[in-house]
């Protein structure tokens, strides 16, 4: 017994030493996003936002009384689990990061969490992985996300449709973890409200023609089509084929379909479409826009606010724990994210660090009204929109 204790103490010491071995006054944080692959157009802005939070912390004097945060970028590719795992391994072994801001897509996030973060005891905060599977994953308290689970979005989309009196629908989803997870949760929620999903079929991204898919979907006899895919991939192809063949005239869209390019591509036929997209409003969002613009970062874009919040949470948790050892600060993430405490907006990280150093308590609001529920995921506010006269119009927030 004594020997085990001794051994584990030595291990802990060794780990702590390894984590801070590089330089005592520098803490590295991995920024693991898909810089190549299907969402390569989104990720540079996300990484910039995360690094914005780090430089804000550094400008305020760093954490733990003077240690600076350094972001280390690594490519998750969004789709290739093996490549993402290798990239995360590199972050751990050769960079010695204390935490990872990422990964982005649900599939690679699950892979890197299981293969790298949990075995190495690393904290991961994802800004954009939304698969419901991540809610019950065995993460030993190491995984958090500032994006809400699609289980919640499924419910939101189902109630949007139920409130409009829709009782029958056809569903098509992009054939990956995100699409499958969202369609499952949507179907469960829609059926719980008394609706019927007449057909649920996957579509592959990157094909030239989706008329066969639409033909099968419309044969179900449903009037509405729920498209849970990507606006610049198969999703737009499905809608175009549906409009061309007259298979469907009414669409309900998941968050991946929210893009101006969709309206440009489809035009007036999209009018009457409804959908949901994670949204944040209020002083936190405004503060982020101002902060980002002042620092030369474009604030408009998917998951940029969530990325800023993810990086800020890592910094605050380290400060609150008084240690850059993931085993110690993982327990502090929920404390700094939720009440009680002083409310913290983007641009006020310096103030938060000071409060924490003085032994006080903070409630990080951030750019997305961060409120972590369950095992550590964002509760999420969704914007219900309807397309009218070729523009997205907000109906309400849910």
């Amino acid at each position: 017994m004594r020997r085990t204790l001794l051994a584990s103490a030595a291990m802990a010491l060794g780990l702590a030493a390894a984590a801070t071995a590089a330089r005592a006054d520098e803490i590295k944080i991995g920024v693991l996003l898909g810089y190549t692959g299907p969402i390569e157009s989104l990720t540079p802005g996300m990484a910039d936002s995360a690094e914005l939070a780090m430089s804000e912390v550094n400008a305020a004097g760093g954490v733990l009384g003077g240690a600076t945060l350094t972001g280390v970028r690594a490519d998750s590719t969004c789709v290739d689990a093996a490549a993402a795992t290798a990239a995360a391994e590199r972050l751990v072994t050769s960079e010695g990061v204390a935490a990872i801001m990422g990964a982005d897509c649900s599939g690679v996030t699950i892979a890197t969490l299981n293969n790298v973060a949990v075995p190495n005891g690393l904290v991961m905060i994802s800004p954009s992985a939304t698969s419901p599977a991540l809610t019950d994953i065995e993460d030993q308290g190491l995984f958090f996300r500032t994006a809400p689970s699609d289980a919640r979005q499924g419910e939101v989309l189902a109630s949007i449709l139920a409130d409009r009196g829709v009782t029958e629908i056809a569903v098509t989803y992009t054939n990956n973890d995100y699409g499958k997870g969202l369609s499952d949760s949507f179907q469960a929620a829609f059926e719980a409200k008394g609706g019927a999903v007449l057909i649920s079929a996957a579509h592959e991204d990157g094909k030239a023609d989706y008329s066969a898919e639409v033909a099968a979907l419309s044969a179900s006899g449903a009037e509405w089509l729920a498209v849970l895919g990507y606006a610049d991939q198969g999703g737009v192809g499905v809608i175009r084929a549906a409009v061309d063949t007259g298979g469907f005239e009414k669409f309900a869209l998941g968050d991946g379909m929210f893009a101006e390019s969709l309206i440009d591509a489809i035009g007036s036929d999209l009018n009457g479409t409804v959908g949901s997209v994670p949204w944040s409003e209020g002083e936190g969002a405004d503060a982020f826009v101002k902060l980002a613009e002042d620092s030369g970062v474009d604030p408009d874009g998917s998951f940029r606010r969530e990325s800023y919040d993810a990086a800020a949470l890592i910094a605050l948790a380290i400060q609150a724990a008084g240690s850059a050892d993931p085993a110690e600060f993982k327990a502090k993430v929920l404390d700094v994210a939720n009440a009680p405490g002083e409310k913290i907006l983007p641009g006020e990280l310096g103030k938060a660090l000071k409060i924490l150093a003085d032994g006080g308590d903070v409630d990080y609001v951030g750019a997305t009204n961060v409120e972590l529920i369950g095992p550590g995921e964002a509760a999420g506010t969704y914007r219900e929109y309807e397309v009218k006269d070729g523009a997205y119009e907000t109906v309400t927030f849910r």
Partner: protein
Amino acid sequence: MTDILNALVLFMNFVGVPALAYGSQLALGALGVTLIFGVLRFAFFAHGDLMAFGTMVTILATWGLQAMGVSLGVLPTALLALPFGAAAAVLAALSADKAVFAFYRKQRAKPVVFFIASVGVMFVLNGLVRIIIGPDDQRFADGGRFLFKVGEFRDWSGLSEGLAIRTTQALTVVAALIVMVALFRFLERTKMGKAMRAYSDNEDLALLSGVDPARVVRWTWVIAAVLATLAGVLYGLDKSFKPFTYFQLLLPIFAAAILGGIGSPKGAVVGAYIVAFSEVMVTYAYRKFAMYLGPQDWAPEGLLQLLSTEYKFSVSFLILVAVLVTRPTGLFKGKVF
């Protein structure tokens, strides 16, 4: 009576029209493959990427014309740009022949060597296209999108089902018909066409009768490259241009050529339509169709779908395997197997 009409219109809208357009595009591709096989005696695997190359140049020329303010009104501008794309594809094919295939012809290499060399050519073209225009989707169709829309048809006919025909679909079928007739007349009537058929039938005999092999080979490449560009541009106008999907078209194109009997132009056309219609018909869900034809107020339990749409490509694969196993010479007795 209206029910039967409704069922027919429904079938035409979701199966007939799309399959006819798709089949015409495949036919143009399969004709090129079959010509090369007939004359040069090898499976030219770079055909999909030759299509992509010609289409890419056409797209670039289209953008140029659009920037200059040239347009064809209802018809897509790409038709004007087509000669540029065809010329570039011809140039690419002839350079590939000079740089690669001429060498192996001199060596009298086995067909399998040619075939592997063509895979190399495929990779080169593949890379070129990705470097120049990138791997992304490009849409270059302009002009009027529809001959008539679903709603217009419904109002006109008073039926509850609608039918839409896109300009590009009509254009594809018309263009394919014209080209096929022209090609068959060329092969039947002209001296060069006869020389090509003779060369394909019996090389030695043709040489003894004074057929110039270099000219036959050159003409074959020119025709195949023009056909490939036309097929690629029509496919891209109708659907969208993406280098990877063009590479994937290789499978249905070869399935069509082999089903018809490789080396036989007539077979290539028939095979292409059979492949296209099977792909669409096997994956279509017949529920609504059956509801119109069945008794009043009756609806089948399931969707009446043979195969899920994800398996569309496997249909051409199945056809390919079935033909090779049971009747390797194809429907029209391709000569070479």
